[in-house]
């Protein structure tokens, strides 16, 4: 995984989180502004997800600033062109991936329900997502596995 791919993946995940927050925020704001009879804020799970996602994104901002600062202070030994630590991926992939998991889980739960037999699909999808991100991080550190 090149740095360009890492940026693409990170931006994709962050844009996904921002899009979801914007859609839910717009829907709630529309309902509040027009005194709508049906308001998605009445759904406790969706409301708590909205609050959590905003909190996670706020944490991401703080963590990314700290990571940016640590990247600037990084020194690379002469002749060494391989990253020695996966610390820089902790924010860009790991942190946002947690929010992404919640985003994937929310529509699944709302459409299929929590006790549905379709759970194996959701579990498998998340496992593949985590596996791919882990493999990309390994590939960027050590080359092709």
């Amino acid at each position, binding site marked *: 995984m090149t740095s360009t791919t890492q940026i693409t993946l990170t931006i994709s995940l962050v844009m996904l989180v921002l899009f*979801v927050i914007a*859609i839910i925020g717009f829907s709630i704001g*529309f309902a509040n502004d027009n005194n709508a009879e049906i308001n998605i804020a009445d759904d406790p799970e969706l409301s708590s997800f909205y609050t959590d996602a905003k909190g996670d994104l706020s944490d991401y901002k703080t963590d990314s600033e700290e990571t940016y600062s640590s990247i600037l202070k990084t020194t690379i030994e002469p002749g060494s062109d391989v990253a020695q630590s996966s610390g820089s991926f902790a924010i860009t992939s790991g942190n946002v991936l947690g929010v992404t998991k919640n985003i*994937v889980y*929310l529509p699944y739960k*709302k459409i299929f329900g929590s006790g549905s037999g379709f759970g194996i699909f959701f579990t498998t999808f998340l496992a593949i997502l985590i596996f791919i991100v882990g493999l990309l991080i390994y590939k960027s550190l050590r080359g092709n596995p």
Partner: protein
Amino acid sequence: MIFLDYLYNLPNSTEGLDEIVTQTIDIFPFFTPMILFFVFMVVFIGGITRQKSRTGTADYPAWAVVASIATLLPALLFSVSSGFIRLDWLIIVVSLNILSAIWFFLDMKPQEV
């Protein structure tokens, strides 16, 4: 004079246009989801077909996002008054937006991965 037997009671049209829709939905609750499904499919298939005819290829995830947003807008308008849409249907439309966004934002090109 022949009187026709209607399958459902006809809505009372003297109480306003919205009341006709409300009474129709009351008799046939799947009416609103059918309208929303119609909006989604018209935008989704129409957009894909038109883009394919112009450029030879179509961006399926992008049209899914556009179609789901186009579906959300009438769903939100329905939510202003009671009787048009239920809360669970509105949440499913929002969920559809989220699923489309997942498809769109994670649709990276092979060379990028």
